[in-house]
């Protein structure tokens, strides 16, 4: 079944949003998982007993499929640019959850990447 033109673009938007959420969620989960104490095998066993590592892996597996679906519906040259928003989302989430610093240069970078993605999103 081929969706109509209008529903293709809304499906693309949903896939794009899911990709950002899963990528950011996955990276934050891995960051939380990496906070495990000990080293070597003890550390890995500790990580395996807590949900963060598995949550991260789960996010990445689903993201893998979502990203393929997204790329099937858009030209690759457009999709790869729209995917750059992940860089921004991870930094903003890191600021909110882990209190990472946002310096002026970082804010400039975030704004420029967002602007670029917006231009591609609007103009194609």
């Amino acid at each position, binding site marked *: 079944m081929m969706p109509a033109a209008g529903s293709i673009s809304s499906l693309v938007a949903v896939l794009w949003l899911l990709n950002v959420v899963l990528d950011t969620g996955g990276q934050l989960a891995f960051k939380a998982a990496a906070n495990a104490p000990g080293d070597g095998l003890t550390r890995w066993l500790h990580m395996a007993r807590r949900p963060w590592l598995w949550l991260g892996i789960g996010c990445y597996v689903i993201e893998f499929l979502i990203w*393929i679906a997204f790329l099937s519906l858009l030209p690759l040259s457009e999709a790869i640019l729209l995917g750059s928003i992940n860089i921004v989302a991870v930094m903003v989430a890191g600021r909110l959850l882990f209190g990472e610093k946002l310096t002026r240069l970082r804010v*400039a970078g975030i704004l420029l990447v967002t602007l670029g993605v917006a231009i591609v999103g609007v103009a194609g």
Partner: protein
Amino acid sequence: MKHGWFYLIGFLLLMGFDSIGAISFKYAGMHALPVEANIEWLLRLFAKPWVYGAVVGYIGAFFTWMTLLKHAPIGPAFAASHLEVVSVMLLSVWLFDEHLTAGRVLGAVAILAGIVCLGLAESHEHVPEPAEA
């Protein structure tokens, strides 16, 4: 620069693996059309070799990145690791007959400028660790 060649080859390798990953993903999707949220789509996807090419690209990129990070400063490494946006765009024109529209070129320029800013920000914030004895 003593390690100039090491960095250059490392970053080109990283860009190569990332491009292989993105292009394999695109081929994987193209050969499994139409996109459906069901098991048939997954079976079509994993029956073709492309999806495994994507996995190889990502594993290669991961190990190249980890090796580079041992030696290269994080800021420039971060910026260089996102340059595959450019190589993938150019390869798309060649492989998939896509067009570099004004919107895409303008957007890519802004994104690249942003990535350079983020790379510079990383360089400023990370004090280099003392060299190992």
